[in-house]
């Protein structure tokens, strides 16, 4: 076919492991026409970034090509000399990385980094490239496009850097750009602008693109076709609308289905029901810095889930630190079951500590890698409830069964021998073993793949019902809020912007910020981004 730009056949790649080489890509095919955008979707470790880089004929240290071909515009990149491959990169194939902040060289101005590609490939002179940069910066809707290029990377915000990097990728007007999770590190309200800018510029120059992401809703906006990858192999591939409407494979369907989970909401608390934990008029700051929490007030009712939503820097995690006593507040108070909690962790009684437990975002760092599950789960049971010997053993086994981990198989394992979802279950168990009243869940599902996250949410809901637990759910993810919250608190810059029962919060009218937050969350509908941007302009 004349209009085929990139054709990958039976591509195999291996990575160096402790003993020998293990396969990362196990024979993947991929075809891309000129001007087409292919979405590459899969869970972490599926091999999608490796595939994206391989499309540039590039492998990272510790990985190697083991077979197959990558034919770009009629030439097999794997058979070219390093020099010939270099002549294509940054010229006819460009790359946009996930972390723009780390991928710009801190020692050079943005515009110098922009012009480097075109100049070394002889596409433009330096002066031409600089003039061109201003034009592209404007197209990417960067503020002050004539001057922003003369700044250094650390002087520019994350969302702007990501747009500057897309402009840089476009500098030589390549035939193909590989986007590797370009908006994953951004807040939703920033993400929507970057997505729009990327889509426009790719359309304007009719550039083909491989768009890598784990977010279905994002890929639905960006791609003409979607390819699903799992364990280094293709699951299925179809035009975007077709795949969204009728996914063929079970695995793809399960990816789609997880976004549907809705826990049955608990009945609204009676007007005279006492909250189990109440935060009133709390103000807090780190050292001598500005206040990171200002006059924050909310209640958590027994057996209910309170979701605290906000973007990075909103103060939602600081609120958790104040409640747990890690950061004594400057003003206000925290009550647990009616009694005022001492501000400092060290002044709280063991009983008070027992009643509020915490589950963390990163299960990898939340569990001591040198302790077995028996020690991790058994310690709170022993520490708070004085269980010993056979009683303790029985309790640990019971807890493991509770979260569907076979005690005989798992009790003496170390966290390193568990999958991500299993680790997060153990994190939940450690909290549960204290028999708490309130559990603070700090972004507990954001580091997990969607199917696993879904399982964790269902598990938390079941445990809530069985044990009468109250949750404070800290998250930036609106889908999670929809799935599990009873009551929602929206935070921005250390303030509570709005709060109320979930049903009210998701129905207009909203506070302006809540509206922006809610409407920035990508939806599965491929027309969402177009529609949403139309609304924003209006």
């Amino acid at each position: 076919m004349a209009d085929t730009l990139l054709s990958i056949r039976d591509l195999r790649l291996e990575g160096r492991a402790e003993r020998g080489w293990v396969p990362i890509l196990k024979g993947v095919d991929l075809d891309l026409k000129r001007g087409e955008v292919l979405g590459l979707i899969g869970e972490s470790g599926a091999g999608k970034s490796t595939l994206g880089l391989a499309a540039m004929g590039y492998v990272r240290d510790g990985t190697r090509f083991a077979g197959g071909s990558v034919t770009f515009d009629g030439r097999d990149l794997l058979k070219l000399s390093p020099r010939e491959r270099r002549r294509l990169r940054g010229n006819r194939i460009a790359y946009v990385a996930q972390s723009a902040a780390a991928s710009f060289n801190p020692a050079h101005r943005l515009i110098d980094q922009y012009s480097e590609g075109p100049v070394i490939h002889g596409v433009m002179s330096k002066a031409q490239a600089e003039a061109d940069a201003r034009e592209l910066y404007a197209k990417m809707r960067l503020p002050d496009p004539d001057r922003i290029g003369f700044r250094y990377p650390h002087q520019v915000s994350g969302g702007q850097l990501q747009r500057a990097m897309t402009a840089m990728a476009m500098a030589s007007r390549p035939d193909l750009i590989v986007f590797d999770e370009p908006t994953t590190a951004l807040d939703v309200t920033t993400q929507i602008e970057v997505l729009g800018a990327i889509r426009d510029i790719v359309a304007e120059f009719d550039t083909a693109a491989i768009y890598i992401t784990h977010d279905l809703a994002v890929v639905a906006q960006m791609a003409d076709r979607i390819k699903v990858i799992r364990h280094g192999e293709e699951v299925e591939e179809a035009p975007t609308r077709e795949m969204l409407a009728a996914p063929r494979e079970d695995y793809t369907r399960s990816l789609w289905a997880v976004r549907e989970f809705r826990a049955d909401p608990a009945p609204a608390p009676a007007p005279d029901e006492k909250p189990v934990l109440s935060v009133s008029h709390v103000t807090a700051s780190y050292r001598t810095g500005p206040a990171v929490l200002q006059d924050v007030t909310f209640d958590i009712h027994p057996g209910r889930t309170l979701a605290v939503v906000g973007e990075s820097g909103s103060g939602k995690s600081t609120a958790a630190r104040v409640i747990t006593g890690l950061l004594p507040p400057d003003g206000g108070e925290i009550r647990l079951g009616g009694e005022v909690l001492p501000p400092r962790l060290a002044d709280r009684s063991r009983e008070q500590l027992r009643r509020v437990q915490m589950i963390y975002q990163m299960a990898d760092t939340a569990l001591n890698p040198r302790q077995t599950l028996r020690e991790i789960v058994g310690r709170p049971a022993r520490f708070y409830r004085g269980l010993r010997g056979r009683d303790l053993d029985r309790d640990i086994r019971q807890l493991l069964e509770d979260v569907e981990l076979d005690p005989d198989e798992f009790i003496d394992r170390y966290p390193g021998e568990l999958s991500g979802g299993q680790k997060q279950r153990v994190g939940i168990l450690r909290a549960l073993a204290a028999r708490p009243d309130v559990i603070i869940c700090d972004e507990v599902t954001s580091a997990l793949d969607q199917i696993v996250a879904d399982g964790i949410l269902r598990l938390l809901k079941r445990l809530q019902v069985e044990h009468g637990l109250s949750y404070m759910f800290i998250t930036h993810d609106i889908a999670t809020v929809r799935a599990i919250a009873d009551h929602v608190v929206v935070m921005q810059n250390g303030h509570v912007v709005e709060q109320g029962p979930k049903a009210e919060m998701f129905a207009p009218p909203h506070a302006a910020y809540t509206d922006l937050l809610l409407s920035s969350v990508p939806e599965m509908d491929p027309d969402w981004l177009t529609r949403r941007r139309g609304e924003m302009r209006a």
Partner: protein
Amino acid sequence: MSPIVRMILGRLALGLLSLVLVSLVIFMAVELLPGDIAQEVLGQSATPETVAAFRAELGLDQAAPIRYVHWLGGVLTGDLGNSLATGRDIGSMIVDRFGKTLFLAGYAAAISVPLAVTLGILAALYRNSIFDRIVNVATLSSISFPEYFVAYILILLLSINTPVFPSIADFGRDPSLGDMLYRTFLPAMTLVLVVTAHMMRMTRASIINLMAQPYIEMARLKGVGPARVILRHALPNALAPIINVVALNLAYLITGVVIVEVVFVYPGLGQLMVDSVAKRDITVVQGCCLVFAGIYILLNLLADVLSIATNPQLLHRK
């Protein structure tokens, strides 16, 4: 005042503070001594009168803070007191020898710094190659060798078996520079071998760390060739780590100097210090220690300031 100037001034103040603290430690070391220094130095056979006279000469009959201020005042005006053993003025004893030591250390540094940095960068770039492995084994061995072992091997090879260079690094009055370089070749080489190994390993480690940064990968993905990746993308960010590596290794240079001077009977500060330790000539040791430590701190300070001044994130504030 720009933030970078403020930061540099801050470092200078900190450096000054550590100079004062170090002088205090050197002074206090004598104070912390259990028992009576005068008795210790003079031995058990000394009569109470001689001990008392000696104490008075040391100024030990005054309170410690007064003596410290007095001593520090002297140090600042170049008066380091008198030697306990010979009664000679320490300042004049040190000046000449200090120059010789600086010459030797400078000689070694002038060769080893460029050598180590170049080899370190090369080893990092050709990581896991045969070259890298050979260099790794060679430098590991080299840092495992006592300085005097290296020194005697060099003497055996280049002075005894093939008499090319002198094994005693003394030069008479008014030697020419060439003559000095020739006569101190072996001690300088000894230092070079020891210091280069340490410095090279650290340079390699910091460059490897740098080459793993995403912006280096980005440069490669823009089609930038290997030479340009290093010169334009790695080097500007490598300056600060390399400067720090060089500063850290000054400690090895100073340690090496002390021993090398003894082996080659080189009349420098290290030799004087070792002789004085044996004679328990505390005032001289204090003086030498202060000079060495002062130089060490000043050079570290210089490195600190340089790495601030070459850091792009500090140079161009928001």
